[in-house]
């Protein structure tokens, strides 16, 4: 073999460049020389020049000016030039380039060349970058070559046909007869090509699939048997397995033929069992064949014994020392976990062990599979493992693990206490990676579990004392302490050891959260509101709360400042309403809106705003129509909202539509439709045409629409929820 000296000299020159800049200089000079050479007519070094250009192209430099040279080289009678020309075509031309069409004719000619190596170049290039038109043009030629007596050409023609079928599906029909006859070849290369071609044809056309299913299954089984039980064949042996590439492709074709068909699946049953049992699984190559066998068994209508055998092979894979094998096993088990759930459950122990694997890919797969295997019967033990995993898992998997754990807990929690404990555990371990709706979801769960209020608040208080860095946990803890602080102070609890807590202790804890630089503004809001709520649940330290609240009245954070001012107002002007305003929250429905969070926090805040303003408020005054709202508390749980509409224009006003919306949050409590009395003043009437009473939930607007300047809008929204208090 003659080394291409000019090419290698150039490569040496480029590699000896010490900087990127120097390299660019060398390449620019070389490219200029190459371009000059291209412009010359026939010279002996053409192939070297193009090869140089291709090297430069691989380094990432532009080489489009070489496209036409490729076309010229391909048309050359010299083999060395054709060889490099075709290589250039495959590297520089693709079907989108115009120049690619120009080589169609050369390819056509070369396909009929007397020398098989020239034919091979054409076939290879067509299979690499042949466009749909080229494929249509040359398909009959390829079919002719499929029937040639030359194995070397036949195998290449087969894969070229595969490319043609991929590009132009309809041409598949053309190749069916030849493909069939190729199955009786002895040459492995041709056989392999034939199997690939038949696979492609069957996947594209159900009719073709039917035809091959009828005639080819026995042949394929025969060929496969020959491979499996044959003795050592030096030509095709790979670590004791005879032609694994061919075996895998045959298995894949059998899979397609046996899918959804009892008869075909029966015909291949024995063979698959034989392959599964006889293949040596000590090396990767044997496992590659076993893997394909397992995939085939699981995909066709195999009998149950065979299926169990397949799943057991996967189970064995899970115990293999080779990480790749373990990874493969888990991806396969993941695919069948829903269909063959019980079979996979048998290997749960091994899968859970893989959670501790060093490799991140294996860990990820193990997590997915473990989450899929959680069921009502194994929830406790699985959760233990998952929580251990969560504490040491890589950061990129934490969020996924946390949300998987929450889902599992929600579906299969054996008891409410267990559920709450699990969520708290996750918040302590991976609080920073949980989703936003975890906090309102947890709060909702807690309020719904009234028997555990005491237990929960004790647990959360203890957690708060230990660590205030995990924001979701701190938020929930503050909320609970605010709501159930009285239970905490009582000092007794059925479910857990009670802490002896004084009012000062509790207020200290909240103040630490308020003042800590680790607390986000949202968290501080929670803490402030909780402190305020405690003013009705404690007896001695109300003054302390008063002073905390007034301090925050001048806080830089606008949200905190606002709340503090409102709470201050509650202390000063509306002290008589304080207890009612701050009493326990009602049990709420499950609601996944993030706005729910704001509701908890804002609900009391807005109520107080209303009270801070006058009891009767003019809400709308325009074009002679005036609307006023007034609230009157009838009883502990009943509130009447009166809307007075007056018309001071000269004419009647008609089509007055009243819509009252109630947040879904509060629909456990009855809201009575408004009674309408049309007031008939001496002047003009307003007639009510339309009254609608719906339960649109508008929790979001609490935080978004709220603005002091637009009090009329605010009050309209207030009206919407006030009806239930």
């Amino acid at each position, binding site marked *: *073999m*003659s*080394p*291409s*000296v000019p*090419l*290698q000299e150039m*490569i040496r020159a480029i590699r000896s460049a010490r900087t990127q800049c120097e390299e660019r200089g060398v390449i620019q000079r070389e490219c200029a020389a190459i371009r000059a050479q291209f412009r010359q007519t026939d*010279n*002996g*070094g053409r192939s070297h020049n193009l090869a140089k250009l*291709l*090297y430069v192209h*691989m*380094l990432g430099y532009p080489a489009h000016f070489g496209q036409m040279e490729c076309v010229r080289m391909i048309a050359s009678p*010299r*083999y*060395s030039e054709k*060889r490099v020309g075709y*290589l250039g075509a495959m590297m520089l031309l*693709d079907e*989108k380039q115009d120049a690619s069409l120009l080589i169609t004719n050369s390819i056509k000619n070369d396909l009929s060349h007397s020398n098989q*190596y020239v034919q091979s170049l054409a*076939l290879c290039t067509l*299979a*690499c970058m042949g466009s749909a038109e080229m494929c249509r043009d040359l398909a009959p030629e390829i079919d002719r070559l499929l029937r040639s007596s030359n194995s*070397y050409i036949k*195998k*290449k023609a087969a*894969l*070229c046909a595969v490319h043609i079928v*991929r590009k132009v599906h309809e041409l598949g029909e053309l190749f069916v007869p030849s493909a069939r006859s190729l199955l009786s070849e002895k040459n*492995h*290369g041709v056989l*392999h*090509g034939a199997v690939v071609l038949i*696979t492609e044809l069957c*996947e*594209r056309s159900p009719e073709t699939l039917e035809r091959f299913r009828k005639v080819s299954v026995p042949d394929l089984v025969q060929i496969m048997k020959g491979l499996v039980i044959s003795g050592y064949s030096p*030509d*095709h042996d*790979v670590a004791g397995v005879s*032609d694994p*590439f061919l075996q*895998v492709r045959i298995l*894949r074709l059998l899979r397609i033929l046996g899918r959804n068909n009892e008869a075909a699946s029966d015909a291949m049953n024995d063979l698959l069992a034989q392959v599964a049992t006889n293949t040596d699984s000590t090396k*990767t*190559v044997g*496992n*590659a064949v076993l*893997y*394909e066998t397992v*995939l085939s068994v699981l995909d066709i209508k195999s009998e149950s014994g065979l299926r169990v055998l397949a799943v057991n092979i996967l189970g064995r894979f899970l115990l293999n020392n080779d*990480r*790749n094998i373990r990874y*493969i096993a888990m991806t396969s088990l993941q695919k069948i976990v829903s269909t063959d759930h019980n079979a996979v459950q048998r290997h749960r122990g091994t899968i859970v062990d893989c959670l501790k694997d*060093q*490799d991140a*890919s*294996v860990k990820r797969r193990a997590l997915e599979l473990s989450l899929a295997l959680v069921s009502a019967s194994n929830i406790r033990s699985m959760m233990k493992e998952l929580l251990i995993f969560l504490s040491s898992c890589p950061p990129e998997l934490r969020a996924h693990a946390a949300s998987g754990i929450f889902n599992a807990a929600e579906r299969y929690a054996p008891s409410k206490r267990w559920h709450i404990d699990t969520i708290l555990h996750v918040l302590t371990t991976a609080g920073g990676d949980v989703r936003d709706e975890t906090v309102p979801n947890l709060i909702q769960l807690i309020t719904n579990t009234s028997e555990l209020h005491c237990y929960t608040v004790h647990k959360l208080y203890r957690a708060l004392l230990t660590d205030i860095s995990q924001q979701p946990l701190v938020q929930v803890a503050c909320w609970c302490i605010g709501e159930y602080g009285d239970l905490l102070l009582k000092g007794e609890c059925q479910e857990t050891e009670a802490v002896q807590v004084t009012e000062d202790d509790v207020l200290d804890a909240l103040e630490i959260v308020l003042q800590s630089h680790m607390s986000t503004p949202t968290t501080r809001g929670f803490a402030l509101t909780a402190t305020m709520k405690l003013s009705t649940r404690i007896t001695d330290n109300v003054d302390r709360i008063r002073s905390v609240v007034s301090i925050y009245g001048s806080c830089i954070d606008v949200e905190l400042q606002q709340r503090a001012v409102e709470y201050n107002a509650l202390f000063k002007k509306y002290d008589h309403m304080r207890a009612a305003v701050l009493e326990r929250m009602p049990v709420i429905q499950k609601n996944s809106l993030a706005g729910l969070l704001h509701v908890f926090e804002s609900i009391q805040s807005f109520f107080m705003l209303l009270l801070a303003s006058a009891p009767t408020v003019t809400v709308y005054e325009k074009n002679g129509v005036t609307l006023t709202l007034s609230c009157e508390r009838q009883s502990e749980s009943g509130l009447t909202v009166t809307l007075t509409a007056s018309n001071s224009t000269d004419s009647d006003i008609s089509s007055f539509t009243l819509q009252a919306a109630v947040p879904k949050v509060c629909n456990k409590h009855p809201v009575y439709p408004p009674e309408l009395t049309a007031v008939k003043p001496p002047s003009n009437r307003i007639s009510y045409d339309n009254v609608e009473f719906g339960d649109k939930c508008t929790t979001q607007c609490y935080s978004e629409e709220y603005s002091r300047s637009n009090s009329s809008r605010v009050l309209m929204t207030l009206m919407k929820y006030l009806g239930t208090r």
Partner: protein
Amino acid sequence: MKRQTVTHRLRFLLLFSRQGKLRLQKWFVPTSEREKKKVIRDMIMLVLPRQPRTCNFLQWKDLKIVYKRYASLYFCAGLEEHDNELLALEVLHRYVELLDKYFGNVCELDIIFNFEKAYFILDEFLMGGEVLETSKFAVNVSMEQADTLQETMEEYMSKPAY
């Protein structure tokens, strides 16, 4: 559930050094220049930081990536979703064996200075993303004969005077 047409084949094969220099690129599906550059960049970024004894398989977008390090070169293949990763490892290994037989104890420099030969060998082994010839010997024989043809032709056409 309607079954989509599933094609099993390699999408691409890349060889790059431990410093991230590309030594060979073969694309089995039409890919724009920009897309090629992006894939190469992504593969290098994904594969180079991998620790020695980790899994040889990765997930990248909708493809499975199979890679193996041989001396100073990374061999990296992109597979479609339903392809057999273990077999892909065998494919990479077979290609290395073919290079080794042809160059005699192959090293990265051989592939740098004779890159066109590396491509010719690849084209005798894979075509259209599928395995073309499953016998090592057959590939070697084809390469020898093609090389002889080239030399003969060149002799016939009279060698350039270098």
